[in-house]
C-alpha cells in the first residue's frame, strides 16, 4: 500500500470527507450563492442592478468573496469594556455549533458514507440545532452594550418561541413514519408520498419556525437595525462580525437540509447505487439543491415583508403557530394509525 493510497484512504474516510466538503466547502459555496441570490432578487424587485462591478461577466457573483476579503483585512476592534474571553469565543462556538448538526444527517442510505451512523439521527440533529443561539445571548451579554443586551434578550425571547415549534413539527415527521432514523423517514417517502404533501401543516409550521429561528423576514427582530443597531453583534467588527453573519446563514442552511430530508424526501426521487458517485455524490447534490431552493424562498421574503413587532411575533408563534404545530403532530399520529407509510 503506497503513501498515496493511504492518503486517499484518510481523505475518503467519511467523517473527514464530510468535515471538509460538507463542513467547509459546500457551506461556503451555498452561502455565497444564497447571498448573491438574495441581493440580486431584491435588486430585481426594487428595480436596481444589485452587485455587479466585482465580476460583471457573471453578474457580480464574486461580490461576496470580495466582501469576505475586505472583512478579513479589517481591524478587529475589541472594546475595553467587554468580557474578553466570552466576547471572542462566543461567535466562534456559535459558528461551530451552527454547522455541527450536519453530522447527524445521512446524505445517502449507504452506511459506509454516513458521518456517524445512528438510529435516532433526527432527534440528535434537533438537539444539536438548539445549542448555538445560547452563544448569541452570551455574545450580547459579553459586549456590555445596551443595544447588544436588548438584542440578546430578543434572541432569548425568540428561542423560547421557535424551538418548540420546530421540534414538534419536525418530530411529527418521525412520528408519522414510526422511526427517528432519517434514512427510514426518507425511505418511507418513496413514491411521492412526501411528508410535506401529506402533512402540510407540520411543514408550514416548521417553515415559519425556521424563519423565526434564523431571523429571516418578517421576523428579523433580534438584529433589527433601526432599533438595536445590530443586536447582539453591535460591538463586533471585521471578521468577527462576518463570522456572526455567516453563522446565521449556516444555521439557515442546516435547517433547510433538515426540512428537505424530513419533508421533501431527501435524495428522492434518486435511488443511491454503489460507489462514490452514485452512492454519495448525486444523492447529496439532490439534497443540497432542495435545501438551496428552500433557502431561496426564505431569502425572497426579504423583498416582500417588513418586520413584525417582537410581541406580535411572539403572539404569532405561541398563539397560532404552536397550536398549528400540535395539530400537525396529531395529523402525523393519525396518518401513522391509518398506516399510510
Amino acid at each position, binding site marked *: 500500500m503506497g503513501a498515496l493510497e493511504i492518503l486517499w484512504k484518510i481523505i475518503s474516510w467519511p467523517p473527514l470527507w464530510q468535515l471538509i466538503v460538507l463542513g467547509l466547502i459546500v457551506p461556503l459555496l451555498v452561502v455565497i450563492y444564497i447571498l448573491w441570490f438574495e441581493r440580486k432578487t431584491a435588486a430585481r424587485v*426594487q*428595480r*436596481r442592478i444589485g452587485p455587479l462591478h466585482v465580476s460583471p461577466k457573471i453578474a457580480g457573483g464574486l461580490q461576496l468573496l470580495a466582501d469576505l476579503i475586505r472583512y478579513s483585512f479589517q481591524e478587529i476592534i475589541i472594546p475595553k469594556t467587554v468580557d474578553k474571553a466570552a466576547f471572542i469565543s462566543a461567535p466562534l462556538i456559535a459558528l461551530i455549533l451552527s454547522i455541527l448538526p450536519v453530522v447527524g444527517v445521512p446524505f445517502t442510505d449507504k452506511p459506509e458514507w454516513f458521518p456517524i451512523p445512528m438510529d435516532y439521527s433526527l432527534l440528535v440533529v434537533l438537539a444539536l440545532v438548539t445549542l448555538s443561539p445560547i452563544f448569541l445571548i452570551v455574545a450580547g451579554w459579553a459586549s456590555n452594550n445596551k443595544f447588544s443586551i436588548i438584542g440578546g434578550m430578543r434572541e432569548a425571547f425568540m428561542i423560547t418561541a421557535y424551538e418548540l415549534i420546530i421540534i414538534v413539527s419536525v418530530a411529527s415527521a418521525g412520528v408519522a413514519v414510526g422511526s427517528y432514523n432519517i434514512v427510514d423517514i426518507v425511505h418511507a417517502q418513496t413514491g411521492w408520498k412526501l411528508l410535506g404533501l401529506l402533512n402540510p401543516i407540520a411543514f408550514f409550521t416548521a417553515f415559519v419556525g425556521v424563519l423565526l429561528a434564523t431571523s429571516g423576514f*418578517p421576523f428579523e427582530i433580534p438584529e433589527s437595525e*433601526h*432599533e438595536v443597531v445590530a443586536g447582539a453583534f453591535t460591538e463586533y467588527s471585521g471578521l468577527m462580525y462576518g463570522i456572526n453573519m455567516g453563522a446565521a446563514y449556516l444555521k439557515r442552511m442546516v435547517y433547510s437540509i433538515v426540512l428537505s430530508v424530513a419533508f421533501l424526501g431527501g435524495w428522492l426521487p434518486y435511488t443511491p447505487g454503489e460507489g462514490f458517485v452514485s452512492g454519495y455524490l448525486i444523492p447529496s447534490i439532490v439534497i443540497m439543491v432542495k435545501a438551496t431552493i428552500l433557502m431561496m424562498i426564505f431569502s425572497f421574503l426579504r423583498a416582500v415583508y417588513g418586520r*413584525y*413587532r*417582537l410581541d*406580535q411575533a411572539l403572539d404569532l408563534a405561541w398563539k397560532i403557530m404552536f397550536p398549528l404545530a400540535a395539530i400537525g403532530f396529531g395529523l402525523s399520529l393519525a396518518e401513522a394509525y391509518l398506516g399510510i407509510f
Partner: protein
Amino acid sequence: MSGFVRGSVGYNDLGLPGMWTRRIGKDVYEVFIGPQHPGSGHTRIIIWVDGDIIVDSEIDMGYVHRTMEKLSEGRQWIKAIPLFERMAIHDACNVTLPYVRAVEKLLDVEPPERASYLRVLLCEINRIAAFLYGFGIFGVFLGHSTMYMWPFGDREVWVELAEWLTGARLTHTYPVFGGVRRDVPAGFTDALRKAIRYMRRRLEDYRKIFVDNPVIRSRLEGVGVIPKKIAVELGITGPNLRASGVEYDVRMNHPYEVYDRLDFEIPVFEEGDAYARVLQRVEEIKQSLRILEQVADWLDKHEKTPIMAEKFWKTAPPLYKKVFQEQGRVKLPATFAIMKVPAGKAYERGETARGEISYYVESNGANKPYRVRIHSPSARNAIVFKYILPGHRVMDLPAIYGSIDYFPPEADR
C-alpha cells in the same frame, strides 16, 4: 421616577460644568438612541424602558443646528433665500416661499399671475418628492427594503422635473422677490403629464406592496395614536394633524399664491394612528397630482407673460431684458443685492410637505433683516416624541418616528 435634578446649564449633582444629570428609577433601563444610530437621523431620542415598554422619553435635538435666524441677520435680504433652503433641501421651494412672500408684503410687491402659477408648480413637485422621501425612510424603518428603494427611485422623476424647470436638482432658489427666476422650458408640460400618469400607476404598486401589506398594517394600526384634542393641544402640524381629524391646511385656510383658484381637497382621517398618517400622505400625493394637472393646463392655455414684477423689471439694463425676452430667464438686477426693505413686521405661513412653516420677518428699513424667526414643521412635531412615545413598545419607536416624518435638519434650522 424623579424628574430632572436641575434643568439649567452648568449645574448638576456631580459638579461637572456644562452637564446635566437625571436620576432614573431602579428598574428602568435608559437607552440613548442617536445621533449615530441607524434609526435616529441627526437627532437623539432618549427613552427609559421598563421591560419592553417605554415609560418616559425625551428628544434631544440640535445636532444639525445652523443658527439660521442669527445668520440671516448678517446678510442681505436676497441672500437669506439660499440659506433657508438648507433646512429641507428636497422641499426647497415650499420652505422658502413664505419668506419670499413675507418680504414681498413688506415691499408691497405682488408677483404676476404666471409667476404665481409657476411657484405652485414647483411647490407641488417638491411636495411629492418630499413625501416620497419620507416614504422611503419609513419603509426602511419598518425593515421593508422594497419600500425604501421604490419611492427613492420614483422621486428621481420629480427631482429631474424640478431640475429641468429651475436648473438645480434640490436647492432651486426658484421664487425670488417679485416673481420666479425662470419660465417653463418647451415641452415641460407634456413631461409633467407623463410623470403624473406614471406616479398614479406607482401609487397603486405602493398600495399593493406596502400599504395593504399585512405585516405593515399590523405594525402601524393603533400605534402612536394622537387623538384630535391632543393633536391640537400639542400643536402638531401638517399631514400628522390632518390624520388626527383636524381639517387644517394653510393652502385652504389661508390661501396663498393661486391655491384659491385651484380645485383640490384636503383629505382628513379620523384615526390618528401611524397607519392613518401613511394613508394621509398617499391621499395628499393624489391631491398634489390633481393640482399639477390643473397648473399644466393653465400653462398650456396662456401666453408667456412676464414672470417678474414690473417694479424690479423697469430699472434693469437692456441686456438683462433681452435675456429675459429671448430665454425666459431672469438675470437678477443688482438692485436685489442692495435692496432696502421698508420698516415693518410681516408674518407669513406656508404648507410644506411636513406641515406648516411660518416666518416672522421684521425690518427696520436696512438692507438686512432685523429679525427673522422661523418655525419649521418638524420643530413643531418634535414635541410628539416627548408626549406620545411613553406607553409604547421599543419596537414602536421606528414606526412612530417614520410616520411622523420627522426631518432633523428642518427641525434644527
